[in-house]
């Protein structure tokens, strides 16, 4: 068969298996579903926030978000396992080592985002938005393949310090990874909220509103683009790291990460492509409904098909789009002749 089709199989083979459903009954199950849904939603919200930032600045969807996340998790694995930077200078505390490694990996991802923006996106300013969106699709193919080949056959460990530990709450097991994911999302959203109140943040909002007018006001539009791409890359990688350990995942960098961004698309659309609040609400709603559907409809798996919960987000997305074509919080485009 054609080589392209060997690859066509590859993406699907790397889609993660449907998450195991929550056991238990009643309140115990409800608590577990709530927390797990919140953490799944947080992952989607993080990635959606990356999409939204890039969209606000450049008016285009970055389909390569998942591939950037894949490369970023590879960076984290290399930083932690191979180079041990800055871990080897920081002594024995594994939490300090891991978080400093994460910071280095995020910095590398930001750098990657900046390079991509400078080389590919900047020359496309003024081209049709569709062309820019498709160029990110091409970028996705390149980065995904490179990332998959870098990771190789065996998944690379991310050395998550809390592994699969957790605590009990009302009988339900809550994992530390869920708490990390939720906290990371809260931190990211608060940071973005505060950032939009700084001078640079106001510049970014101005660019989102009107590029030419902000250019006339002396705002460097190119720098705003670069900033958005760097932040988008970092958020994608953070989301992917959270996803790799969620819910009780192996905590490894896998080729499956590339598909993550496509699973987060419903969250982006539900909230509206240009709304930060929408990213949070969309992410949580989509994540919650996915996990809840997985837990409460589990006995109907035979009729609904294996992995039905992964389709729930897309169904919600299509229904919402038909009712509200610009998502829940998106700004409707005013179109003139």
């Amino acid at each position, binding site marked *: 068969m054609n*080589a392209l089709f060997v690859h066509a199989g590859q993406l699907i083979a790397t889609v993660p298996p449907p998450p195991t459903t929550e056991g238990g009954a009643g309140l115990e199950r409800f608590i577990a579903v709530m927390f797990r849904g919140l953490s799944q939603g947080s992952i989607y919200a993080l990635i959606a926030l990356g999409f939204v930032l890039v969209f606000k600045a450049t008016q285009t969807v970055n389909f390569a978000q998942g591939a950037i996340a894949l490369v970023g998790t590879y960076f984290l694995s290399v930083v932690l396992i191979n180079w041990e930077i800055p871990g080897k200078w920081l002594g024995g505390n594994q939490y300090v080592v891991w978080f400093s490694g994460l910071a280095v990996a995020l910095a590398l991802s930001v750098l990657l985002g900046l390079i991509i923006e400078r080389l590919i996106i900047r020359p496309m300013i003024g081209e049709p938005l569709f062309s820019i969106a498709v160029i990110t699709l091409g970028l996705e193919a390149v980065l995904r393949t490179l990332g998959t080949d870098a990771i190789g056959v065996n998944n690379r460990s991310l050395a998550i310090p809390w592994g699969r530990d957790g605590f009990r709450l009302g009988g339900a097991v809550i994992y530390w990874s869920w708490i990390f994911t939720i906290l990371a999302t809260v931190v990211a959203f608060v940071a973005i909220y505060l950032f939009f109140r700084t001078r640079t943040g106001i510049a970014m909002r101005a660019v989102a509103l009107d590029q030419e007018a902000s250019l006339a006001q002396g705002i460097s539009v190119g720098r705003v683009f670069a900033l958005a791409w760097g932040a988008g890359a970092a958020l994608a990688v953070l989301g992917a790291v959270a996803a790799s350990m969620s819910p009780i995942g192996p905590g490894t960098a896998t080729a499956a990460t590339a598909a993550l961004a496509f699973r987060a698309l*419903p969250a982006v659309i539900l909230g509206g492509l240009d709304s930060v609040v929408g990213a949070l609400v969309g992410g949580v709603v989509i994540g919650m409904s996915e996990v809840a559907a997985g837990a409460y409809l589990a006995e109907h798996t035979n009729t609904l098909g294996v992995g039905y919960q992964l389709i729930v987000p897309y169904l919600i997305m299509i229904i919402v789009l038909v009712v509200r074509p610009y998502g829940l919080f998106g700004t409707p485009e005013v179109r003139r002749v």
Partner: protein
Amino acid sequence: MWGRPNLHTSYRSEASIFPTWTQKNLAFIGIVILVLLPFHLPIIDQLPFVRFLGDSDWIRLTTQALIFAIAALGLNILTGVAGQVSLGHAFFMGAGAYASAYLGGDPGNQTWGHGLPIWLWLPGAGVTAALIGLIVAPAAVRVRGLYLAIITVGLVFIGIHLSRLFPEIAGPAEVGRDFPELEFRFWKEDAALVSFSDAGNWLWFDIGGSAKTYLFCLALLGLFVLVAKNLHRTRTGRALQAIRDRDVAAEIMGVPEVKYKLIAFALSSFFAGVSGALFATFVGRLPPESWDLILSVEFIAILLVGGAGTIAGTLLGTFFVVTLPRFMESFAGWMTEQANGNGIWAGFWDIFVATGSGDFGFISTGQVAPGFPVPVAALDTILYGALVIIFLLFEPLGLYGIWIKIRNYWKGWPFTY
């Protein structure tokens, strides 16, 4: 002013299929080459560089390009002419393929099939896909631009899930089912009247099986090219172009937007359905996961590389994108041969190719699993992603744009100014 492009002295010449003399002749030469391609011709095979394919591996690849060209023409109607970016083309191809399997496939223990003849299942595949397109279209018409692209991404994932829900139609996951064979019969007789996939005689010619499949697909493609080309020249085509250029303006001028978007969706899905059915029967057995996002992206790449909105560009783009991996494979094999040999350039090629373990080099022909050095299959994907990027950065009009540049250069030659 004879033979000048874009100079029309009558409406008749402007609306003609081949507006210039050059295009007419190039198209004629192209058709002759395409028709002769599967034959062994003693005289032609003597010429240097010109080797017609005969019954080789290449002919299967070219047939695949022909089949993909039909789907690409369909996407061209929707995306190139009507301006609606769809990433769900693979979904409609899959819909066509499974409609053909349901209508024409052999009933098995675990799979449904009615064993109907080709003149029912091939149009049936197109019509089913078109109907599904019509069901989806009202939702798609509500949204525009990138929202539409994303909603159609969802379609692909839903399609793959549906295939898991109905293993009786799609076959078991990651295995797939058998598709009907390419042969003509009036009804469910035992012996096929004309087979398009077995070697044998046609009139007084002795033709191999793949050559027959090739010619059959070529004829179908010809039909679809005519339909697509004529669509451009009709009221419908002009309405679609008006919607692409500015939908609000088109509506104000009295072009019913919803109606024409529905037409575009249905037509494009029809093309995709027929192409999907052909492709499935051509490969014989396909896992349902083949109809995934990467296939859709490939068609977007075909449009962009060829030049969106033009028939010639779409055809060129299809051949370019479909045959490129094979060229890449041959080239990588050749590089490995050179690196292993004793030529002067062996050291140069060794830079790119990893010949042994621990060797510095980027590409490995011996490897299949992902990892460094990169296997050739991965190189294909990288290359085709890179092509999309390069074409969009430097030649947004695609191969067709390159043709226009060459044409414009020679138009004034040797007086460039």
